[in-house]
């Protein structure tokens, strides 16, 4: 059997889900027997491949760039997994929603900056007015809540998904876990 193609994507999140994923430690070797990691912040691929079997997405959709990415990821992935509370529910990035992006930008680049107080307008993608979970943009096949989901959760869920075994997410994890 040829290996499945796995991608991991990092939108507006703290990278904690990726850290927790790496926390699977030696079990990553088992996983590497079953999948090839074709795109991820931890591998050196610049473009999202045309055909991916499983895409794990960390983070909420907070910028125009995130929106573009999530649509591309969906278009080229057979299975899309929302990884962690930011992707699943907006979580911490969405805490700015009641106020909008401007106060956040002012706080970061004007109030707290001692030098060159200016809000970036080139290269850095424009923030969306509202931070949303990824399923408000694209169809999500599996939701893995948790902040972050534990390494055990990743291991159990991925093993079930790769081998076609039964999977009860609520037994494994919850919002804020």
């Amino acid at each position, binding site marked *: 059997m040829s290996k499945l193609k796995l991608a991991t994507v990092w939108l507006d999140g703290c990278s904690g889900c990726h850290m927790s994923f790496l926390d699977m430690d030696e079990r990553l070797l088992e996983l590497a027997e079953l999948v090839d990691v074709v795109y991820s912040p931890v591998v050196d691929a610049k473009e999202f491949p045309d055909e991916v079997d499983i895409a794990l997405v960390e983070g909420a959709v907070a910028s125009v760039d995130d929106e573009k990415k999530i649509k591309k990821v969906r278009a080229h992935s057979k299975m899309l997994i*929302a990884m962690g*509370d930011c992707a*699943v*529910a*907006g*979580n*911490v990035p*969405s*805490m700015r*929603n*009641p*106020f909008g992006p401007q106060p956040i930008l002012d706080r970061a680049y004007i109030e707290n900056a001692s030098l060159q107080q200016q809000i970036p307008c080139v290269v850095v993608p424009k923030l969306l007015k*509202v931070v*949303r*979970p990824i*399923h*408000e943009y694209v169809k*999500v096949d599996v*939701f*893995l*809540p948790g*902040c972050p989901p534990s390494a055990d959760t990743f291991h159990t869920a991925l093993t079930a998904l790769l081998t076609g075994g039964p999977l009860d*997410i*609520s037994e494994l994890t*919850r*919002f*804020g876990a």
Partner: protein
Amino acid sequence: MSDPVEVKTLIIDEQEVSALRGQTILEVARENDIDIPTLCHLEGLSDVGACRLCLVEIKGSNKLLPACVATVYEGMEVRTNTERLKKHRRMILEMLFAERNHICAVCVSNGHCELQAMGQEQGLTHIRLPYRNPKLTLDASHERFTADHNRCILCMRCVRVCAEIEGAHVWDVMGRGINSVVITDLNDEWGKSTCTRCGKCVQVCPTGALFDKSKIGSDHPKYPDFLPNLKMMREAQ
């Protein structure tokens, strides 16, 4: 004319049970180890049917009834766990999560929250409704406690415990429908209200909406179990 028969027999989930006249469906179900999920109900307080999680089906009626306030009658046939009810319960929970800003990861009640636990119990993995992201206030004017309205589910436990048990009735509800908020006195700051500082409201709050300032991180279990004991001691006096 009052009903002279004291004992009623009814069926809950195909199980024959007996009850006393005036008992609620929820009371009878729990006496018989039949689980009906609840959020606003709390042993020791009156029931208001605010959360709607305990809705049950009654044979012969199209209406779903809240088990916490609906009383039993002879020959009643109750179903507590049909697919239709499960669907409604999930939707109710999703509406609660979408209505305000519940960010479990940064909540003092993370791991001790009844809403969070109920979400997990009912198999919620995400919220299908768009989040409303309302702009809500946080009242930290009290020297011991904080009220974060982002996390309130309007269960009214604080209102009831303050009025019924503490006898102070500092908490009440302002506004209607989705704009409702719990307030202290006539919407005064909690710290400047007639609060007796007893902390009962904090202990009965199912979420992190009311919390003790001395607690940090998510180290804030609540202990509402004092209520039935307190009530029992008072009745014995």
